């Protein structure tokens, strides 16, 4: 009897539950905009925008891949940054970390363990849920030596990899082999990969071969504000709004605001300016000072913004490599001057940095005396001297170092070394970078006033890199590096004598000089120091040593120049990459169609 009575009741309950489950699943599938109770969304402060419309930007050429594991070029990284998300993110405006996929994180007292808790209800752009297994999978792939992911180097500390384990479905623990001063900034830019799509190709050893631009939209997913819609070879990449994105505005509207984001591939800077001028694109970034002034003169429905100095530092350096027997007698003679610290200090004193800012950047830049660009708000050493240009001081330093002056073949004053030979050398510069070519020419003129005969040699960029980093057959070079992050970690290979970008003498087995050994020590110590104050003190000292020894003669840092249509809301260019699209989810068109869904 019991059973007979219980039967229909059980069936009714089951059917009701099934119907409810079906309804809720149906709702979730039909309307991802509706927040489930469990979802823990990230509320972004700022102007509330209008939903709908299409944002159009120009990229200087095509991105090459959508796969974060192999992306090597800036454009691919920019697009991937929009389609993917990281656990902890560096806010490009504040330059500080903020929670992203991680709702929170806790660092153990010894600084070796990071416990990260993921947000509830996170979903990839194809609707598949994200859990701790995706995070584990991601770091397993990044750390796999056979994948050759560039991210791997970030996850190796003192030669040992970071380990990751899962506590529960939403909690993962990262164990560091050594304390790491960078802290949670480490996780910025490390996209969490969709295990449900990549695990099979990874097991088959093909994970690097997928994610080409020709990938079908339903075969690729991420956690960023936009997802793949269409790629037209050579012309454009169209992304569409990710309906499962995990951020909202203060009114609770799910971001991003725009329905579509289009990247047009425009092969050169001038064509990019023309497209912006003719209203075909909504914003423009990475403008040269010349183009910025042209656009500023003819404002037609758009606003131009100078976001201030960025993190790019341009510098002159001499060839201080020890090539042993391979060194030509001529280079050996020149390296005697280059290795003399007073010679480098004299060159630095003679360079007119203000003129570089004025003539190369049309005043939209800042003179530099150290590696930390002025756009970096926290790490610059404010005590560092900024001596004005002084030819007298330069002459005194040269005289002190045994140089003298005689008459050149045309009767002009010529600087002679201790052996009575004229000081002549060449400066390499990239032929594709007009700004640096101008800087080299200005330096040539500055040094002429000291009696040095300098030739500027513009070289195609790859040939220049080959000369500087491989054959090492050069005298001096003008180059620039744009730091990826404000933290010193992003430039560690410039500082360390073993680093590949320690350009004046890269990849040394042992530090060639005492001051390089001291910098190595300071930088290594600051990397494991626990507090910002400790790190800053060590880093300040490293900056002082660099300024004293002048292996790199810092020149100037350009401002970040951008522009946008007046109809683009929340346009707030930052000095960190990506300058304009860092808040792409909040960008909105003030004139977007009214009937856009909320």
């Amino acid at each position, binding site marked *: 009897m019991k059973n007979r009575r219980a039967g229909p009741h059980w069936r009714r309950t089951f059917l009701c539950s099934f119907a409810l489950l079906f309804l809720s699943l149906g709702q979730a599938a039909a309307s991802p905009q509706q927040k489930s109770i469990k979802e823990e969304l990230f509320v972004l402060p700022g102007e509330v925008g209008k939903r709908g419309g*299409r944002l*159009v930007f120009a990229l200087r*050429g*095509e991105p*090459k*891949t959508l*796969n974060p594991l192999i992306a*090597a*070029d800036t454009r691919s990284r920019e697009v991937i940054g929009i389609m993917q998300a990281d656990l902890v993110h560096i806010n490009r405006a504040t330059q500080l970390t903020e929670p992203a996929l991680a709702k929170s994180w806790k660092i153990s007292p010894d600084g070796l363990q990071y416990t990260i808790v993921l947000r509830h209800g996170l979903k990839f752009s194809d609707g598949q849920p994200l859990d701790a297994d995706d995070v584990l999978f991601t770091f397993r792939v990044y750390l796999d*030596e056979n994948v*050759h992911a*560039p991210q791997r*180097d970030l996850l*190796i500390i003192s030669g040992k990899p970071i380990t990751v384990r899962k506590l529960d479905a939403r909690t993962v623990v990262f164990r560091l082999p050594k304390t790491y001063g960078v802290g949670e900034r480490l996780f910025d830019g490390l996209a969490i990969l969709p295990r449900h799509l990549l695990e099979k190709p990874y097991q088959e050893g093909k994970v690097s*071969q997928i994610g*080409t*631009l*020709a990938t079908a939209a339903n075969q690729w997913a991420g956690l960023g504000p936009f997802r793949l819609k*269409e790629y*037209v*070879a*050579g*012309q*454009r990449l*169209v992304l569409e709004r990710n309906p499962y994105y995990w951020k909202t505005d203060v009114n609770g509207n799910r971001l991003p605001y725009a329905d579509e984001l*289009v990247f*047009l*591939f*425009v*092969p*050169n800077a001038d*064509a990019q300016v*023309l*497209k912006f*001028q*003719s209203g*075909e694109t909504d914003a423009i970034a990475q403008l040269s000072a010349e183009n910025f002034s042209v656009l500023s003169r003819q404002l037609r429905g758009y606003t131009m913004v100078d976001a201030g100095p960025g993190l790019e530092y341009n510098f002159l350096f001499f060839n201080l490599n020890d090539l042993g027997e391979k060194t030509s007698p001529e280079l050996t003679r020149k390296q005697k001057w280059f290795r003399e610290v007073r010679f480098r200090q004299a060159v630095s004193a003679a360079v007119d940095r203000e003129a570089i800012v004025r003539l190369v950047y049309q005043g939209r830049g800042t003179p530099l005396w150290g590696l930390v660009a002025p756009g970096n708000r926290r790490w610059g050493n404010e005590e560092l001297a900024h001596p004005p240009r002084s030819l007298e001081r330069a002459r005194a330093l040269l005289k002190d170092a045994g140089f003298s002056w005689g008459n050149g073949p045309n009767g002009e004053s010529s600087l002679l070394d201790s052996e009575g030979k004229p000081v002549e050398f060449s400066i390499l510069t990239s032929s*594709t970078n007009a700004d640096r070519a101008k800087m080299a020419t200005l330096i040539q003129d500055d040094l002429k006033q000291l009696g040095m005969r300098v030739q500027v040699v513009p070289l*195609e*960029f*790859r*040939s220049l*890199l*080959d*000369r500087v*980093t*491989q*054959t090492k057959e050069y005298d001096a070079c003008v*180059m620039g*590096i744009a730091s*990826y992050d404000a933290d010193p970690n*992003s*430039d*560690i*290979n*410039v500082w360390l004598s073993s*680093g*590949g*970008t320690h350009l004046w003498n890269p*990849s040394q087995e042992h530090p060639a000089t005492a001051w390089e050994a001291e910098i190595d020590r300071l930088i290594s110590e600051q990397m494991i120091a626990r507090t910002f104050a400790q790190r800053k003190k060590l880093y300040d000292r490293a900056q002082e040593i660099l300024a004293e020894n002048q292996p790199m003669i810092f020149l100037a840092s350009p401002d970040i120049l951008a522009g946008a249509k007046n109809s683009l809301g929340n346009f707030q260019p930052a000095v960190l990459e990506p300058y304009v699209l860092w808040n792409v989810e909040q960008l909105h068109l003030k004139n977007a169609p009214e009937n856009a869904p909320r």
Partner: protein
Amino acid sequence: MRFFFRRLRHACFLLFGVSILAFLFTTLAPGNYFDEMRLNPQIAPETMAALRAQYQLDRPLPVRYVSWMNSVLHGQMGFSFAYNSPVAPILFVRARNTLLLTITATLIAWGIALPLGVWSAERFGRLPDRLLSWATAALLVIPDLALALGLLVLTVRTGWFPTGSMTSLDFGSLSLGGKFRDLALHMTLPVAALVLSGLPLLIRHVRAAVAEVLDAPFMLAARGHGIPRRTLLYRYALRVAANPLISLFGFSIGALLSGSLLVEVVMSWPGLGPLLLESILSRDLYVVIDGVLFSTMFLVSGNLIADILLYWADPRIRTESAAR
């Protein structure tokens, strides 16, 4: 037929020679694709070495050449380091876009040059002929780059045409007629630049070739026989003057893939131009080598077609060939 096969054999030898030279020159150029990573302070030299090894950049040249040739024979045409995929699909899409542009421009240019050249030859030395000569001389001295930039500036100021790309963002949702119109609008500027840069040379050749024939005694006789002017010019004079023009036509075919590269870069046309420029600068070796090989194939085919046309048009060549 024997003539055709002999030319084809020569063409194959030429292509093989060009493939070796293109491979050598491109691979021996200083620097490689992964060099730019050296400037990324976050990437360790060991990672770059591993990537170089993965893409066989550390292997000897002959091994790499054989490996690439094998890939060409299998239709993949090597591997693009930048796109991380075989070169063939990347190149084919762009080559199609380039051909659309250049074939249209070539047809328009020949379509204008033939009647205009004949018209000018008929008035040889008179005011209209001299005016046309000045106009063509003026166009000849303007570099392609300046012409393309001038057209772009005009467009930005007037807003008559789009400033680059091949189709609009809404191309997919347009009707067939709308798509045609959209494509035509986007093609107008680059085609105009190509036609204006190629036209003067064609007009001058047609004019010179036809003017030379018009003075010939057989033309005087034909005129005496009362053959109508139009028939005289287009059926007799043009046919006799065809030899140099056929060679020029062969050259036009040869330039189909390589003649528009600069205009494509300036006007953001998604053809081979921007791809090759970027590949050269980034040392994406196999894209560059395949681009050169493709262009050579067109040059060789153009010459082959011109030879066949000459064989068909000129009985003297047939006789010479038969005598051999």
